[in-house]
């Protein structure tokens, strides 16, 4: 078992690599942002046409392959899946849209805080509220039913697709789209990005690090183990930003951020609730998908499709603020998620039993 010290250290490595990646070219406070990486990869594949956020980020392939290699080495790779795949796909898409209304996944939220971006404070509040809503349903028996052991090839497809994408990026980059301006054009050297991905992927596989899991377990079981990862990320990224003079306290003029408090909050409520329902934050699902869990692979596909919709239909926020489409999807998405959570908990069971007369 990994102790609290190990978890803080693992978080610290993520925090350190984020600052290093930012220093060597990744966008500010975005050294390590899973939602942003997925969104950029989606753009590189031409699934959306937002020209400023298109790049097949090697960190992403590194994360999946790092988790894959670690899981294989430790004999923990197993093809599993079949637990409400389409609900997971759909929740993945909503999770991404929520993240893009705030402009960051939970990991970037911590990194933004560590960079002095105070807009991440209401987001953190929203994340906690979303998780608390999820816990309300968990305590009332919410689950998406069990998964199953699947044919062994099933689990290999996702990691192999990541290997293929990495191969294309290195050997046939002409097949992919590369941003010429904006965040997508800001990139750390390929080898550095890839190695950072592999290291964090392997580490996250061992520690089961999860940003949502940290808050959830602290609320639910008073168990702070996973939360230590979160704290490690924050402290080291903060120290790194201060040391490199990248710390800039305030609300206005923060990199790739907007100042609309309500929508920073609401975007992360969506992320928090969907993450509890899915059993993990975007980082965790990449890792699980690398371990052969195809429910998580489908969740990642949902993230990509969500990113594509978010940019094709102007749901993603920009530094100018949230869009009307984004606001509508966040509100309607909340209602749909509450419905799914309710219908798959004991609350709905008891209603049905009460209403239906037997005989």
């Amino acid at each position, binding site marked *: 078992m990994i102790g609290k010290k190990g978890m803080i250290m693992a978080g610290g490595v993520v925090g350190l690599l984020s600052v290093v990646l930012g220093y060597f070219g990744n966008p500010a406070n975005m050294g390590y942002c899973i939602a942003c990486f997925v969104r950029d990869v989606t753009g590189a594949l031409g699934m959306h046409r937002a020209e400023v956020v298109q790049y097949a980020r090697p960190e992403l392939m590194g994360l999946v392959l790092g988790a894959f290699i670690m899981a294989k080495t430790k004999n923990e790779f197993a093809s599993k899946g079949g*637990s409400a795949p389409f609900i997971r796909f759909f929740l993945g898409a909503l999770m991404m849209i929520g993240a893009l209304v705030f402009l960051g996944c939970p990991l970037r939220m911590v990194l933004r805080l560590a960079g002095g971006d105070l807009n991440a404070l209401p987001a953190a509040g929203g994340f906690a509220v979303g998780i608390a809503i999820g816990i309300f349903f*968990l305590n009332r*028996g919410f*689950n998406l*039913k069990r998964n*199953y052991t699947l044919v062994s090839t099933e689990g290999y497809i996702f990691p192999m697709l990541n290997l293929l994408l990495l191969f294309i990026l290195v050997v046939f980059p002409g097949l992919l789209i590369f941003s010429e301006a904006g965040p997508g054009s800001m990139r750390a050297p390929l080898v550095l990005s890839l190695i950072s991905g592999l290291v964090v992927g392997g580490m996250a596989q061992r520690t089961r690090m999860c940003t949502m899991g940290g808050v959830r377990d602290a609320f*639910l079981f008073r168990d702070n183990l996973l939360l230590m990862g979160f704290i490690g990320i924050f402290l080291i990224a903060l120290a790194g930003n201060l040391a490199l003079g990248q710390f800039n306290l305030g609300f206005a003029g923060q990199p790739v951020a907007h100042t609309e408090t309500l929508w920073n909050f609401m975007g992360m409520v969506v992320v928090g609730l969907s993450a509890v329902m899915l*059993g993990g934050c975007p980082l965790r699902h990449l890792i699980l998908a690398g371990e052969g869990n195809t429910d998580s692979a489908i969740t990642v596909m949902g993230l990509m499709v969500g990113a594509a919709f978010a940019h094709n239909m102007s749901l993603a926020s920009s530094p100018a603020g949230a869009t009307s489409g984004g606001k509508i999807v966040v509100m309607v998405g909340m209602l749909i998620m509450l419905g799914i959570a309710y219908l798959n908990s004991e609350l709905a069971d008891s209603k049905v039993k009460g209403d239906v007369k037997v005989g």
Partner: protein
Amino acid sequence: MVNVDARGLSCPQPILMTKKAVEKKPESLTVTVDNETAKNNVLRFLNSSGYTVSIVEDGEDLQLIAKTN
């Protein structure tokens, strides 16, 4: 004998299901899981709830057989 079937579920569900079963204070209960993380977490929970646990492996399934001390 109380049986909790938490196979195919990942944490926290196995713990929550075990917790619910333990609230009725049964003298013995069996929790079946199919992954190491769930096994470790449920084991920790049962031990802290005052049960002595023995573990039986049955193919992919892991049975935690718990008895009151």
